[in-house]
């Protein structure tokens, strides 16, 4: 009993805080893929930029809350410009799967080096805006992690409502289902594409800001993190929102609980093994694609 209370429970809560951030990343990836058919290889870099934008805003004297509010807006702008100026150019070619993947990979390389150029390669620390811990059931949980969990859950619900319960979301789903038909109904499909990409990038940025106080901020911080997000998206089903949420929470829990028993360095191989097993059983992932299910 003690073990459950003092070892397992904190681990689950820690895992949940990371989990919602992973889900935010995975949601961005999966929405971008579901609508645009684009594997965003630069997603990890956008996550890192989110954290650095927050660092820069904090450095400019703003509070963490302002940084948290402004970063997604700036990231959306960056995403919108990236889509319109670069991805649009190869989007209509026959090999757009490969070309967009390569293009975003190139964008990632450039962005990462820009971060190194501007901020240096050394890790930076961000102070958590909420300190202290809350006592629950005889246990102490860091307040900031509870906050991350709460806000993350709110954002996830908001994304769900936006995609499935608003006319804006209907446009996105319609465009994912049948681009031509949607365009002929008067939806500005190209702008929907750019906006969706921007939205996914903004989610990666939020994830970066939220995790900045938990981890340190460095130019390659997105690399390992994006691998988890990719596994989540593959397992949950490329383009599935439900899949990203469920697989994201499940996988981070598995990773966090397994670290009690095995060395954390085996966490990634474990996730990957699960991914391979799921793919053997269901190559399309657990859930169907956006606009198709």
């Amino acid at each position, binding site marked *: 009993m003690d073990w459950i209370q003092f070892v397992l429970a904190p681990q689950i809560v820690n895992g949940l805080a990371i989990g919602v951030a992973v889900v935010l990343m995975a949601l961005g990836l999966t929405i971008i893929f579901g609508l645009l058919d684009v594997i965003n290889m630069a997603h990890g870099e956008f996550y890192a930029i989110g954290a650095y934008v927050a660092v820069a805003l904090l450095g400019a004297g703003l509070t963490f809350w302002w940084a948290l509010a402004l970063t997604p807006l700036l990231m959306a702008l960056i995403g919108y410009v990236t889509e319109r100026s670069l991805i649009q150019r190869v989007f209509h070619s026959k090999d757009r799967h490969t*070309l967009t993947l*390569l293009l975003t990979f*190139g964008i990632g390389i450039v962005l990462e080096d820009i971060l190194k150029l501007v901020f240096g390669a050394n890790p930076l620390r961000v102070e958590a805006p909420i300190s202290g811990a809350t006592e629950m059931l005889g246990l102490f949980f860091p307040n900031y992690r509870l906050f991350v969990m709460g806000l993350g859950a709110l954002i996830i619900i908001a994304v769900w409502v936006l995609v499935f319960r608003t006319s804006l979301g209907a446009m996105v789903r319609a465009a994912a289902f049948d681009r031509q038909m949607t365009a002929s109904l008067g939806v500005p499909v190209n702008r929907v594409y750019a906006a969706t990409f921007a939205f996914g990038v903004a989610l990666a940025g939020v994830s970066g800001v939220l995790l900045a106080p938990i981890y340190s901020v460095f130019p390659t911080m997105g690399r390992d993190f994006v691998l988890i997000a990719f596994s989540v998206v593959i397992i949950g089903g490329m383009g599935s929102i439900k899949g990203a949420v469920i697989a994201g929470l499940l996988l981070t829990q598995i990773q966090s609980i397994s670290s009690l028993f095995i060395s954390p360095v085996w966490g*990634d191989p474990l996730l*990957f093994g699960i991914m391979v097993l799921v793919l053997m059983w269901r190559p399309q992932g657990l859930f169907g694609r956006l606009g198709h299910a």
Partner: protein
Amino acid sequence: MHEVTSRSLGHPARALHWLAGLFFGLALVFAIVAWTVGDVFFFRLGTEALIFAGLALSVDLLLGRTGLLPLGQALFFGMGAYVSALVLKNWSSSFWIAIAVALVFSAITGLIGGLIAIRSKGVYFALISFGLAQVVSKIIFNTRELGASDGMIGVPVAQIAPGLESGQPAGFFLVVLSILFILYAGLAYLMETPFGRQLGAVRTNEQRLSFLGVDPWRTKLAAFVGAACIAGVSGALYPMLRGFVSPELMFFQVSGNAVINVIVGGTGTLIGPLYGSALLTVLRSVVGSYTAHHQIVIGILFILVVIVLPRGLIGLAAPALQERLGRREGAVRTPILHADHPQ
């Protein structure tokens, strides 16, 4: 349907052969000049470019022929390097034994990796190959017996033949050049065989291939194992040149650079990746001597090629060259087709 005198999947074959001759000719000229001057640095750099050209060749076999984009080819490159380093350090100083053991290991890991990755198609394949490499590199990064994050240093020179060892800049350059030539010529020949056609057919229309009684899965697996072997042999040469191995050899940077070399050089041309590797290795070294941020330059170049020149440098040069070669003979026989150009 359409007349194709060139037999290399829509690429003007004669122009590519000519460009291949030019590449290996230029490499020999470089060797003579560098040898006369008594240079070491550029020999080493050139050898490294050739080694990474081998890796790029293996990427092109998958990407250019079967349409599978490998984002983790460094896995097999690094595997070859580690195996070769271990053999040279602990077992034998023979170049041939190191290469042979590395080859066997890459074939086995290629088979295992292929069984995992080939199940998936398109972007899934790309991501799984990426994940495979990431996971194995992490494991090696954390294995103390393999030197963990430091890798292994002090790999002894390999004995290639009496009086010839990997420590001699000119000699080793020529050895690596010969190996690359054998790999290239072997692949170029293979592409003309029925098996080579099957590879192209996998990319064009996998379903139709199975209607013809060919198992596309087996074809792809064969290509994957073949690419793993080429990458492994190239990797095995690395510790002979540099005297060390490190987990970085398996990192995404290496896989990514190989893909960049292929795309910039020209996908599906086989010779393009060699040009791409030579060009970009030199560019990285030159820009790198001015600034630590050479990745920006390479990245922007890569983005430009993907957007403006998706066929790559050789993909651009070859058709024009083919026309010239044809005109010299008085007739242009080949309507050059790009309809099924690989990307």
